[in-house]
């Protein structure tokens, strides 16, 4: 687990809100090794989601460097970042963000439309991903026909299907009851331990953070401590 998956060096992120400039991250430096499962905690406005967005290539830092899997992503153009995201990172959101017009398998197949895989190969990969999250029997159901936990499992299958090494999860259990949340977190743990995925998860929930290998605390845009 010594090889680095994520390297964040002296990153600053400033947003402009009208005439006001808000510095969300202030010279933050962080390294996450391959195969790690990191929970990012901190109060609202501490910069957790901003940091997650930078690591996932959804946003660019105002200053500093971000490298993932040894590749600098802070210098990529919008189009290059899109291609990079498609190949290297899977996303799981608090509110699942599934496409309501598609079935579970349609949602999972969506990222594969960006690949050169044949239809048959895509369907095979989708079936495997749904099996990993334990939802093979719900493949033909639309999101509105699924429970919250099942929707989140579909979202995880979608994040996994193109086999990225990095999963970024923004409050993945924030909208779930305790029992379902634990199931989802257990699934993430399996993905980390058995499939070697590096996971970075933002959470407010200390119990959720307990599923990670380590927890990082942010406050006012700076990393406070590392807890084992």
């Amino acid at each position, binding site marked *: 687990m010594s090889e680095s998956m994520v390297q964040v060096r002296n990153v600053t992120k400033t947003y402009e809100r009208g005439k006001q400039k808000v510095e969300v991250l202030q010279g933050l430096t962080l390294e996450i090794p391959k195969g790690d499962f990191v929970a990012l905690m901190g109060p609202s406005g501490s910069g957790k989601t901003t940091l997650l967005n930078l690591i996932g290539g*959804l946003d660019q830092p105002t200053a500093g460097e971000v490298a993932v899997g040894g590749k600098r992503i802070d210098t990529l153009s919008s*189009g290059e970042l*899109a*291609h990079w995201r*498609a190949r290297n990172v899977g996303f799981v*959101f608090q509110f699942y*963000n599934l*496409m309501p*017009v598609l079935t579970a398998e349609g949602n999972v197949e969506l*990222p594969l439309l960006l690949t050169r895989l044949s239809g048959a190969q895509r369907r095979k990969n989708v079936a495997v991903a749904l099996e990993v999250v334990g939802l093979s029997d719900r493949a033909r159901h639309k999101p509105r026909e699924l429970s919250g936990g099942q929707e989140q499992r579909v979202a995880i299958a979608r994040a996994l299907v193109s086999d990225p090494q990095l999963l970024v999860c923004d409050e993945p259990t924030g909208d779930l009851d305790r029992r379902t949340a634990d199931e989802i977190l257990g699934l993430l743990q399996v993905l980390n331990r058995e499939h070697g995925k590096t996971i970075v998860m933002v959470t407010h929930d200390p119990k959720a953070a307990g599923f990670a290998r380590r927890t990082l605390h942010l406050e006012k845009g700076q990393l406070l401590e590392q807890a084992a």
Partner: protein
Amino acid sequence: MTRAGFVIANLFRKKTRTILTLLSVIMSFLLFGLLQSVNHIFNAGADFIGATRLVTQARVSFTQPLPLSMKPKLESVPGVARVTHSQWFGGVWQTNTPLFVFALDAQSYHDTYPEWVMPEEQWRQFAQTRTAMVAGRQVADKYGWKIGQKIPISSNIYPQKNGSKAWAFDLVGIFDGKDENWQRQTNQIFINHDYFDEANLFGKGRTNFFVLKLAPGADAAAVTRIVDGMFENSPDETKTQTEKEFNLSFVKQIGDIGLIVRWILFAVFFTLLLVVGNTMAQSVRERVPELAVLKTLGFTDGSVLGFVLAEALALCLVGGLIGLALATLMGNLVEKGSGGQFQLRVDTWVWSVGIATILVMSVAVGLLPALRARRLKIVDALAGR
């Protein structure tokens, strides 16, 4: 699933809205198909007539008749092989059904227009019987006229010397066209000009226009210049033009059909632009987070723009093609129902213009929402900003 499947699935996320929008597109293109074919009818008559004949009319308007005494002068023009003349009668069948009746000279007209096909015996009868008339196949079939019948026809312009506008003619022949194009024109009726000239109350020895049949190899432009030059500064100045130009100017007397059609279609498509544009804008507004997720998954800005444009195209294409197909069907039904009198043909040309319109419309309604989708910033869209 394919990208096309994804586009179609998105299109039907709000079924009622999409179906209503689709119906408005269908209706617009149905109207477009029918109106364009009406427009085409007025131009089609001119298209198949070659420049082997010229038409000479009064310079001011063809409603101002020219003296028949011009005929020998016209016949003497080099390049002119035959001259005939034709007079609008203003025929009315029964109470209020207009007929295309022309008073003409049978023999010279027959010589000038070999496209009208009728047994020579009937042409002879027509020339020799003063009260004779010959009818086109369409009009004869439509009213069930048979050779030998006396046909009462009124004129809304010319009364007889006794003041009555009711005329009667002996049907001595039924003519057809030499090919499909000419057969479509057999809704005309010809009567003898000599009889008309003698029996009518107004204007003796005059006709609306002369038709000059050109000799093989004759220079139509030169003949035109000579004829019009011959009558320049006379009381009866002339305007000579090809049959095609003449037919177009004849149509323009009725009104600029093309302009009327264009204005109606402009209103229809402007409304459609607002309806479909609003649907597309609303559809994109409703799923900003979903579009952001697509970008998150790795779809580029261009791909997302493409998805929205593809939805607009699919909506306009499906509606447009159904509308044009319905117009074609209705055109055929109208043509059959009218016994070929009203030829609403939604032909290849109308389809081509229709498809071009569909493409332009798709871009027009889809571009702004698509650009909005393209410009979405993932972080802001996911945060609901």
